[in-house]
């Protein structure tokens, strides 16, 4: 019972904040609902891409940024060749998969070398690969790669524009099936894909691979003794997460309609991880349900905070900064609570292997 309250404390707190914010902002409930449903449709898939690495004991995968980059590269290529509609999106997703697989394998290898400090490493990995991404798309496109396309490139012919409009495949997935419920537009297709993914993850955990992922997440030492190739299982988890993030980013951007070439993927990591944590997930435990609910609460707060800031402080900018702060703050607080609990709770003594990993990180 006590455990149960503890688990649901974070989502309950955010639910309270949302209710309070709604009352203060006094926004039109239909506007909020419309905004919320389209935000959920584009964010859910990305948030769910985080779950597998948590199960495998890799913690919060800040390296989904890598997958997001792969998805973006796919979309940029499709926009360059002017492939229209759903076919364009499909090609973008297909192109991004091999890139995501390669990035995921590399990320897995790097994380295997940094046991006990996977999260900070995955975060630095995201930053470092982002540097290379900038190098390629700011300086090498147009010089090393002979591309000429004034629609997506800067006027001097080198580097991509800061924002690229997805003229040809914008809303392709959203518009596939649209339903009007209570005068609210519901994009059915992306939500259906999310539901498929939920069942997919549930099915995965019943397979042999899923059991191995769990075993590795619980105790690497025991898993290794029972004949599981720990390194390979961890790499598999990273590859799956990265590929899902790539597809998620394609879904996300077709709804946005424009790519912020050098920013879109960076924000994804923080927003997705904060969403998962708001749902009550921890560094070592995350479920599909927590991802779904967390995204709902986080996005709701996102929608209402500028208006609430306007009403409360007379400045909408406050609300804008408040949501940035909430994003970073919730991650910081969750990490703090987790680390704090781990060093003080006597229960961790029954987990020698993991403690060893933690101690290893501690002395580093």
């Amino acid at each position, binding site marked *: 019972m006590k455990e149960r309250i503890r688990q649901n404390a974070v989502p309950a707190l955010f639910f309270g904040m949302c209710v309070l914010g709604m009352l203060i902002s006094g926004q039109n409930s239909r506007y909020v609902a419309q905004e919320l449903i389209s935000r959920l449709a584009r964010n859910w898939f990305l948030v769910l891409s985080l779950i597998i690495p948590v199960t495998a004991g890799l913690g919060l995968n800040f390296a989904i940024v890598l997958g997001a980059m792969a998805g973006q590269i796919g979309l940029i290529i499709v926009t360059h060749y002017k492939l229209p509609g759903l076919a364009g999106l499909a090609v973008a997703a297909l192109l991004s998969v091999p890139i995501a697989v390669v990035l995921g394998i590399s990320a897995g290898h790097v994380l295997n070398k940094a046991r006990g400090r996977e999260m900070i490493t995955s975060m630095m990995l995201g930053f*470092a690969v982002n*540097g290379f991404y900038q*190098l390629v798309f700011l300086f090498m496109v147009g010089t090393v790669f002979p591309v000429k396309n004034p629609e997506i490139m800067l006027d001097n012919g080198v580097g991509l524009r800061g924002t690229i409009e997805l003229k040809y495949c914008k809303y392709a997935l959203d518009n596939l099936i649209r339903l009007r419920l209570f005068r609210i537009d519901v994009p059915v297709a992306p939500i259906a894909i999310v539901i498929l993914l939920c069942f997919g993850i549930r099915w995965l955990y019943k397979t042999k691979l899923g059991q191995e992922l769990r075993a590795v997440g619980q105790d690497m030492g025991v898993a290794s003794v029972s004949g599981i190739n720990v390194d390979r299982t961890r790499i598999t988890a990273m590859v799956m997460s990265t590929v899902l993030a790539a597809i998620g980013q394609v879904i996300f951007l077709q709804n946005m309609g424009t790519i912020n070439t050098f920013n879109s993927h960076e924000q994804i990591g923080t927003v997705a991880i904060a969403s998962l944590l708001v749902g009550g997930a921890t560094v070592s435990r995350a479920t599909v349900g927590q991802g779904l609910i967390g995204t709902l609460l986080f996005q709701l707060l996102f929608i209402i905070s500028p208006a609430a800031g306007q009403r409360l402080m007379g400045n909408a*900018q406050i609300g804008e900064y408040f949501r940035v702060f909430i994003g970073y703050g919730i991650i*910081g607080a969750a990490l703090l609570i987790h680390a704090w609990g781990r060093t003080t709770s006597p229960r961790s003594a029954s987990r020698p292997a993991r403690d060893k990993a933690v101690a290893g990180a501690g002395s*580093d």
Partner: protein
Amino acid sequence: MTDVYKRFIDKVGLPRLTIILFLVALMIVATVNRLPTPMLLTNSLVRIGMNGVMVLAMVPSVQSGAGLNFGLSIGIIAGLIGMLVVMEFNLAGFLGLVVALLIACVLGAAAGYVYGQILNRVRGQEMMIGTYAGFSIVSGMCMFWLLAPFRNPEMIWVVGGKGLRLTLAVDDSLAKILDNLWRFEILGVEIPVGLLLAFALACLLLEVFFRSRFGVSMKVAGANPAFAKSCGVDVDKMRVLGTVLSTALGAMGMVIYCQSFGYVQLYMAPLMMSFPAVAAVLIGGASARKATVWNAVLGTVLFQTLLTISLPVTRSVIQGDISEVAKTIISNCMILYALTRKEGDG
């Protein structure tokens, strides 16, 4: 032969060797393309002086065992507040600088104390917690910059009359005050003597501190906590003290940075500033467990010279400003490399 070669690489360290080779290559390209060498040297010296103290801030936190200070932005914010107070009251010249440094130091030490207490309770996750503590403080302070009771019309938005501007120009009497102190020119290279002296003084004081009895016990606490405990050293206290020193140094480093830069950048600008500082001390040969003043100096010199020279050199080859991207790639790869090493290596 290969043995000697391998031992040489082991001693210098692969990343440092790569950086040095890269630097030499850039210098060759610079000479071949007849770029103005004195100007490049002048800029390098200024940037070394600007960033040096912030890199130096890594040394006490590593030495005390609290690890690389990824939450340096906490100190940086304290430094910004110091600058803002001085600018609000129009304090000019050296008085302004000293007051800014004092405020930065006091606020930095206070924030560092709280931060150090937190780090003591999350052993093993200091880097991650530090990073997100820094991110949270920087984004939380964005709201403060909007609401803070600053009245100086030079600093707040013209429209609305509330909230600090994104970028504030430092008053002429304060800007570059250290840079211009005893400045002289030799062979076309301008030496910012005051700025470099300030950096040197900070290094000297820190080195003296580490040779004092107190400093030695801090080093022992960092290197071998169990042994330190048996000698009667309070390890927790030493870690907090190391973090306090580090944060205060970061704050004062930011004041020095701002006066040399001539602008104070607020809001999300300080968000990623701790990573280049971490990377610089690693480039200088430090690890997450061992860092010396020498590492900080060498790292700053190598990293900043590389960045300064890379800008005009790459501009002569390809278009655009590549130095920001180079900074991102080099600093993050350096940290990544250090994270994937086994304990103790570099």
